[in-house]
């Protein structure tokens, strides 16, 4: 079984986001970039499945600028066998990314495609579902547990009401929740080894897909600031404020 894992390079989750003064986006120059957190869970799960003997190859793929190669390289350092970078500049909407990934799926013919359930930059939560639609494959979104049963997967999904379990036939798409597993850190020897693993570079323009944006970003602004609050000295004062000042209890 072959697993393709899609990983995205995003601003690190610990970075305080700053909006550009000209309101065209957020500041990315000299900002720490990392793998989108739930994509780390996706890689981890694929590598664990390979380690259990149920998969033979894990391929990491990313779409983005040249530097997204670092994100692919990181996936190789934690156990992916080889990488693919689809080079494309500018804003990439999930529809465009899923069309590019569809081309890679057609070429690589994986049995499973894993990715994070949502990217923490644009917060769209679309790519996995869109790729499933384009391929007409089953989709298991927001997965917190995956069990492989022959040619099927049993997946536990986190939903608003609690948990849901579905059974899907392979080939399938799974989008991963942060609770799926605990991603490992890359060891130094594995980082060194990853440098020798191959990363195939493909220009998005060679895949014959229209990736031009369909959504015009008119402006990006700071959200309204909350006015500063106060510190209370005691529980009694807190209750008094809530009752008499805020009038919420």
């Amino acid at each position, binding site marked *: 079984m072959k697993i393709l894992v899609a990983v995205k390079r995003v601003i690190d989750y610990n970075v305080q986001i700053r909006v550009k003064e000209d309101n065209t986006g957020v500041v990315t120059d000299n900002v720490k970039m990392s793998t989108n957190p739930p994509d780390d869970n996706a890689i981890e799960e694929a590598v664990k499945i390979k380690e259990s003997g149920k998969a033979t190859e894990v391929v990491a793929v990313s779409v983005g600028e040249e530097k997204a190669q670092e994100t692919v390289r990181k996936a190789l350092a934690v156990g992916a066998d080889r990488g693919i970078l689809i080079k494309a500049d500018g804003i990439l909407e999930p529809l465009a990314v899923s069309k590019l990934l569809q081309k890679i799926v057609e070429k690589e013919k994986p049995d499973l495609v894993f990715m994070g359930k949502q990217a923490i930059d644009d917060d769209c939560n679309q790519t996995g579902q869109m790729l499933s639609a384009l391929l007409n494959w089953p989709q298991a979104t927001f997965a917190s547990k995956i069990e492989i049963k022959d040619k099927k997967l049993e997946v536990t999904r986190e939903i608003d009401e609690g948990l849901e379990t579905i059974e899907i036939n392979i080939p399938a798409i799974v989008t991963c929740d942060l609770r799926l597993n605990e991603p490992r850190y890359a060891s130094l020897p594995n980082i060194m080894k990853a440098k020798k693993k191959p990363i195939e570079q493909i220009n998005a323009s060679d895949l014959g897909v229209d990736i031009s944006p369909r959504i015009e970003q008119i402006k990006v602004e700071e959200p309204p600031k909350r006015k500063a609050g106060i510190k209370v000295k005691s529980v009694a004062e*807190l209750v008094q404020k809530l009752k008499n000042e805020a009038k919420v209890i």
Partner: protein
Amino acid sequence: MSVLLVAEHNNKELKPFTLNAVTAASQMNTDLHAVIIGNNCGDAAKKLSELPLVKKVIQVEAAHYENFVAENFAPVIVKLAEKYSHVICSANTFGKNLMPRIAASLDTSQVSDIIKVISADTFLRPIYAGNAFATVKSKDPKKCITIRPTSFDPCESSGGSAPIEKAEPSEEFNNTKFVKREEIKSDRPELGTARVVVSGGRGMQSGDNFKLITSVADKLNAAIGASRAAVDAGYISNDHQVGQTGKVVVPDLYIAIGISGAIQHLAGMKESKVIVAINKDGEAPIFSVADYGLEADLFEAVPQFIEELNKLNTIQK
């Protein structure tokens, strides 16, 4: 062209956020139709027809719609969408799972989780966990939009009498089978719509200590929330998680206990009207959004808080 809202329901009743989605959809175009897809969902369809903002209900029924599997829902909505300019639903796990499957089939670039309708094609949406707001304009001929329910008021729920039309179901998608749903039943208000939310974080130290949160919630008739750290640690189940990848809540009062306030948590609660933080670390980022901060050991402060609440006899239900 009219707009099409996808109703969320449990085959008997509408889910509360359907009303918020109707409000948002009606701001895009008042000629609003709603589709309800399910199995024996006549009661819910009738309730949908009673929403005064809904001009027509389309009811699609089949056994394979019983459990709301997106792979079954998408084809029927894609077919109906021929006659509509917009397809709209809530950005909760139902809509997040479903809408992109519809959008890709329509070759539309979806606009997710909008918090404001500026015009029929232009919307405001939070990005980067709400640390920036983007104004975006969809250039696709058909729009697929999910709305953040807590950013729109629920619509009027009675007085309407829209006609209910039946539509043909699509074929079953055989590669996905629903197995089971484990819903956590509670008599408490729902987290997404509660007037008061009391949340615990890693500072609670154990699932057992969450009893303190429960006691405060009992006093205030509140829903119980949690940070991701608390859910990851197994103190409480995932349906309580508030934040960027959990639920977004906008209660009148949000009480954060033992929560440091990572930006991912703030994304889910910082629009609350009044925020209280109880934390022993005076530097915790939660204090930057709190209207009332109490720097104290929660294991001393919370029992006192419960005691003080006991003294009040005016707690609003």
